[in-house]
């Protein structure tokens, strides 16, 4: 999809401090187009901060962020989104007083070139409406088409969250703990859904559930105290002594207990 060997996302010595506390301490990461990367790490490792930096919610203190070889650090979130990067949020972030259909349509208006148009009727935007209906089916909320987003169940809201994120067709998708707060069975179904709707895209996801991580990701990045201490295929990460010592061992022990 992208040209030659240009990575989809590249971080170069990325740093971020809040006051005197350095949260991200010189992170380097290269994600190839089409790769699915899970970012794991203990609480407070800076996973969400890393997502906030890449998506433009915060500007980095120093270092570079490249999207398809183009510098995006310091850009506004909407500028980054227009360059083809979309993200979801850990705490559901949807348009509560709009219907499910309207939520999805809002997610794709910009990417379909409708921008700030006030001289066109939404009902006449055949392409946007057809695509919204498709998305509705993809996230399996056809029956809730006209329900206000705030009246959905939690799991449905999480699905809508993903729907809004992928609506614009961004090539790079960041999912911040997509399965947070879901039950085991919901999680399993939801992972299938994520896999389905992100086919062919570059995917970065923060995840706590190790089952999800090993099932979904091509590669795993382990973030500990603001540094990537390992970045490799799942089996290699599992076998990595440093990772076991810092983090994974205890988590694996927990899950087996």
């Amino acid at each position, binding site marked *: 999809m992208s040209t030659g060997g240009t990575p989809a996302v590249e971080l170069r010595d990325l740093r971020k401090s809040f006051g005197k506390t350095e949260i991200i301490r010189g992170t380097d990461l290269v994600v190839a187009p089409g790769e699915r990367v899970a970012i794991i790490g203990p609480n407070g490792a800076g996973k969400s901060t890393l997502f906030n930096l890449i*998506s433009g919610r915060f500007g980095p203190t120093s270092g570079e962020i490249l999207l398809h070889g183009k510098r995006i650090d310091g850009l*506004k*979130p*909407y500028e980054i*989104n*227009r360059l083809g990067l*979309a*993200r979801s*949020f850990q705490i559901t*972030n*949807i*348009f*509560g*007083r*709009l219907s499910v*259909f*309207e939520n999805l*349509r*809002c*997610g794709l*208006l*910009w*990417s379909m070139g*409708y*921008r*700030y*148009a*006030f*001289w*066109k*009727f*939404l*009902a*006449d*935007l*055949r392409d946007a*409406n*057809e695509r*919204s*209906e498709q998305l*509705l089916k993809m996230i399996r909320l*056809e*029956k*809730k*088409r*006209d329900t206000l987003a705030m009246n959905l169940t939690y799991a449905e809201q999480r699905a809508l969250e993903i729907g*809004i994120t992928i*609506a*614009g067709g961004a090539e790079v998708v960041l999912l911040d703990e997509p399965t947070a707060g879901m039950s085991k069975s919901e999680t399993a179904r939801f992972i299938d859904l994520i896999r389905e709707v992100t086919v062919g895209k570059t995917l970065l996801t923060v995840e706590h559930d190790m089952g999800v991580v090993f099932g979904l990701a091509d590669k795993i990045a382990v973030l500990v105290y603001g540094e990537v201490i390992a970045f490799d295929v799942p089996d290699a990460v599992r076998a990595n002594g440093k990772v076991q010592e810092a983090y994974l061992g205890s988590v694996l022990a927990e899950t087996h207990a």
Partner: protein
Amino acid sequence: MTSPAAAPRRLGTGRLVVWGGFALLFLLAPVVFTSSLSVSLLSQVGIAIVACLSYNMLLGQGGMLSFGHAVYTGLASFVAIHALLGIADGSFPVPVSLIPLVGGVAGAAFAVVLGFVTTKKAGTPFAMITLGLGELVTAMALMIPEFFGGEGGVTANRVVGKPILGLTFGPQIQVYYLLAIYTIVCTAAMFAFTRTPLGRMLNATRDNPERVEFIGYSTQRVRYISFIIAGFFAGVSGGMYALNFEIATAEVVAAGRSGLYLLFTFLGGATFFFGPIIGAVLMVLGFALFSEVTKAWQLYLGLIFLFMVMYAPGGIASLIMMNVRVAMHRKLHRLWGWYGLLAATALVMLVGFGAMIEMVYHLQLGSGGSSSTLRYLGITLDSRGAASWFGALAVALAGFAAFEFVRRRFAVQWGRIQTEIEADMTFKEPTPNAAAAS
């Protein structure tokens, strides 16, 4: 194949009836209410409708609480008055019928300049900036008498230029029909705006500005463009005002008027498109009619506003829509009795409190000269007599107790009906739309 949303926009019969009725109401109103007072009031209703609808673009649709909307209606009024003067001396050759459009362009132009600062921020800072700018413009109105005419304002004559099709706009009825056309067209245009990509993103920006930034939109730009469009319609209303009253004074840009837009838009109902129309009608009626009935009418208005904020934050429009929902499920007949009781007890309470309010006004303003007695609903009250005060208090308290007694039981009944409706709706799923789409 053709799912409901992908189908082209149709002007359904329902919508045709509503809009046709709206237009017909405006065209026929002066035929029914022929007195010069009612034609004058109807003209003012049109002006207020455009102003309140434009205000609600900000408040209801964009979540922008403006305390300075009169800046745009008012400045446009001044520009329109000067345009009328320009027509008179031949320096600005446009037909008089286009004066509201001149106002619209002026309103939009001021919104381009002032709105750029205002819409940098949302929420509380936005409200603060509008308040500050409102004060600034009010102060300027007295500092630049060349434009604002100082204390006396600027007057103009609308019977200027060449009459087109024999219309001089001298008679109020001619002005009324011109304003009615502007009102209908502007209302339709503002409704259309809610159906456009920008209109929808304005709703999204109201609901969740943060998320909007992550789906490609600059919330600042969404607010700014919408603010300019609202400024345009506010300006049209200002131009209509100038044409109707042929005068603009510093009062038209002042905070008091901005407050009225806020108050009546809220009373009418900011969450529905048609809410501000109700609010606008109430605003004109309130000023013209209720102020005749009692000097304390603004106090009553304040009380009503307080009650609405606390008990019906969706305004009158939401009250109507909630009852329409009940009616659609054929359960409204179960509420009529309750509404009767609520109204009766509320009336008793109001009569009691009203007597006390009128007595206070009578004492403070001394409107009866040295006499301490006043006529109230056909009886004579003595504002210095203990009997009148105790009587009024007793009626008020009894009314309040009865009202509260009824209200609590009504709330239970209301809740029961809502639960039944919810149950009905779940039972009927999947919705027709979902069925058609699959």
